[in-house]
């Protein structure tokens, strides 16, 4: 065992921080104020990611043939920490580099790799994730949106819901049922759907957590060429399982929570509250939880670095990460009082982010079920 950052990773972090300090504009907080789905943030992410890409920092852990530097997985963790803790200036593009690109690398045709991977590693494309449906949330494999082969094409019908970033996306990573007779995990396929295809309608679902958070997508006879199919027809579940392992640990929530907590402590100090034992105790407990989430996250990255197969440790890390988000989000309101109820304030933004943490990317209860069955070997209910 070894719990230190390598020299290379330390160098990388130093360079990255210097870059972020000079490159992230002073009004970045203002740009990100309306949340990750806003026009301002989507536009900003394109310029920002291109600048990252220029330095090879958008996809450093990717193989060189796909626009990476073949850097170890740890450099990706450094990136995730530094960017997520600054409010994720990559916007939706963190999904591209975390799991969409890697899935295309693993399951894509040469043509798909050539089309999508450079665009992702150069930071010039926005994706959204079309998995959930009104009747298929936690039970994802209940999905019904269909893509039926028709000559050289597929014809897509159905709807998706909760789709973040759909309003700006160029492509949708779409999970469909390609065999209408199939059920559950069988007969699913993944379509890399160009969002400018005819027959797609997008509706925003208004929310209490921010503007443009959720969308509903409707597909009416959307026709796409067979070349949009990722992997084998009917093997969609295998493809998506691969994606989910990357997605679930994707966002280092602990990194943002840690930075937020430091800011809250500073705020408490300014108000003369840091000597108040009730305040200090809460901060201390939250800090410890952040550290726990961090070390669990590192554990998963390390498994990946060793080329080990995905395990329930991913779910463990994910659960710990959402917990600290919640803990720190609540603490932010508690310490700022009713000022934190005002939209756009630091406390408000963190509280709202934390509100959805236990549901986005799969409900905590479902993650707990996976820990119970895969890690503890418990029987099903």
């Amino acid at each position, binding site marked *: 065992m070894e719990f230190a950052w390598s020299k290379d990773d330390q160098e990388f972090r130093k360079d990255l921080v210097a870059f972020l300090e000079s490159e992230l504009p002073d009004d970045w907080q203002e740009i990100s104020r309306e949340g990750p789905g806003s026009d301002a943030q989507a536009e900003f992410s394109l310029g920002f990611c291109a600048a990252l890409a220029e330095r090879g920092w958008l996809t450093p852990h990717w193989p060189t043939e796909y626009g990476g530097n073949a850097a170890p997985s740890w450099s990706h963790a450094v990136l995730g920490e530094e960017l997520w803790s600054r409010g994720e200036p990559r916007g939706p593009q963190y999904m591209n580099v975390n799991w969409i690109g890697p899935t295309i690398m693993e399951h894509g045709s040469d043509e798909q790799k050539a089309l999508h991977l450079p665009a992702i590693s150069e930071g010039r494309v926005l994706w959204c994730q079309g998995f959930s449906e009104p009747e298929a949330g*936690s039970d994802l494999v209940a999905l019904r949106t269909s893509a039926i082969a028709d000559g050289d094409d597929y014809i897509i019908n159905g709807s998706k819901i909760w789709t973040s970033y759909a309003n700006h996306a160029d492509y949708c990573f779409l999970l469909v049922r390609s065999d209408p007779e199939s059920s559950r995990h069988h007969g699913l396929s993944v379509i890399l759907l160009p969002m400018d295809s005819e027959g797609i309608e997008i509706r925003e679902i*208004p929310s209490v957590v921010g503007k443009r958070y959720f969308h509903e997508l409707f597909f009416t006879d959307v026709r796409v060429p067979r070349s949009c199919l990722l992997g084998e027809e009917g093997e969609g579940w295998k493809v998506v399982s691969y994606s989910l392992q990357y997605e679930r640990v994707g966002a280092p929530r602990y990194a943002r929570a840690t930075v937020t907590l430091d800011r809250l402590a500073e705020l408490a100090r300014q108000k003369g509250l840091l000597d108040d034992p009730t305040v200090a105790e809460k901060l201390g407990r939250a800090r410890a939880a952040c550290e726990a989430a961090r070390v669990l996250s590192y554990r998963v990255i390390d498994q990946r670095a060793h080329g080990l197969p995905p395990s329930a440790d991913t779910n463990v890390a994910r659960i710990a990460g959402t917990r600290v988000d919640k803990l720190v989000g609540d603490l932010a309101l508690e310490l700022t009082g009713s000022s934190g109820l005002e939209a756009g304030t630091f406390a408000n933004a963190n509280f709202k982010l934390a*509100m959805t943490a*236990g549901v986005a990317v799969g409900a905590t209860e479902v993650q707990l079920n996976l820990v119970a069955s895969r890690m503890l070997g418990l029987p099903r209910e």
Partner: protein
Amino acid sequence: MDFELNPEQGALLDAAETLLSRSAGTARAEQLVALYDAGEQSADGYDHDLERALNDAGFTGVALVDGMGPLEATLLTSAVARQAGCVSFGANAIVAAQLLGRTIDGPVALADTALPGPVRFAAQAVCLLVADGEQLRIIEAPATDLVDVDSNFGYPMATLPAELLAAGDIVEGVSAHRMRALWQLAASAEAVGCMQAALSFTIEYLKNRRQFGRSIASFQAVQHRLANCAVMVESARWLCAETAAHNAPAEAAAATATHTMEAATLLFDDTHQLSGAIGFTTEHALHHWTMRLQTLKLELGGAGAHALSLARLRWTDAEG
């Protein structure tokens, strides 16, 4: 001891619920927000019509009617909250009624000079009751040029300038501590109503929401969470009633507020978590009650401050 409603209380609640089902409810709350967001003239996010209806029917002044008191006002405060009424009913029917011996014809806002930050209904209020250290101040017909902050936690709220707070008349013979105790009761009663409604709404939703070929409410892990919520709501509800029946003694009010605001944390977290993504949308009614819980939780410094005041009242003899 008698935990059952007497016939007069039963009739009172029935009548109030009839009025509320007509004049309040989540559809009405949604409409108020929509008009307010659209910048509609005269729409200030406050339900003046509902308030008038409650006044005219005699509900606001119920605590001052012979044979009735703060308990009835408290039960009604919860009823208004269950129907997501956006009015300062508790501040008026409980706090103003007990402090001033009269109710106010219009919105009432409660503030504490030690707690800066936006205050519910500050811009709409025709009467401000302000705890200023040991003293209680009253400001009637305050300056009307306050602007609400941009917020979506269920109530219009605005920040009160310090000069305005200091300008009020001191109410002689009534201490700020008494006002804080009544405020703790009023906020708790409102939170109880929000929690009851949020919980039953969530239970109904989960009974009907099917995943994995069964109702989500049929999972034992989910049932335990909901049952735990019910335990907290029931304890808050009965603490509120008992405290109200005794006219909000300081220690009981602090205990009620401490426990109720802890319950509010659990109810907010679990009803949202168990509802999934739909619970965060404004197309699902849950937020009408839960977002308000966050506002109520922060009043008077929140559960932590309530607990500290309770400990002081109980074990040292300070004024809370």
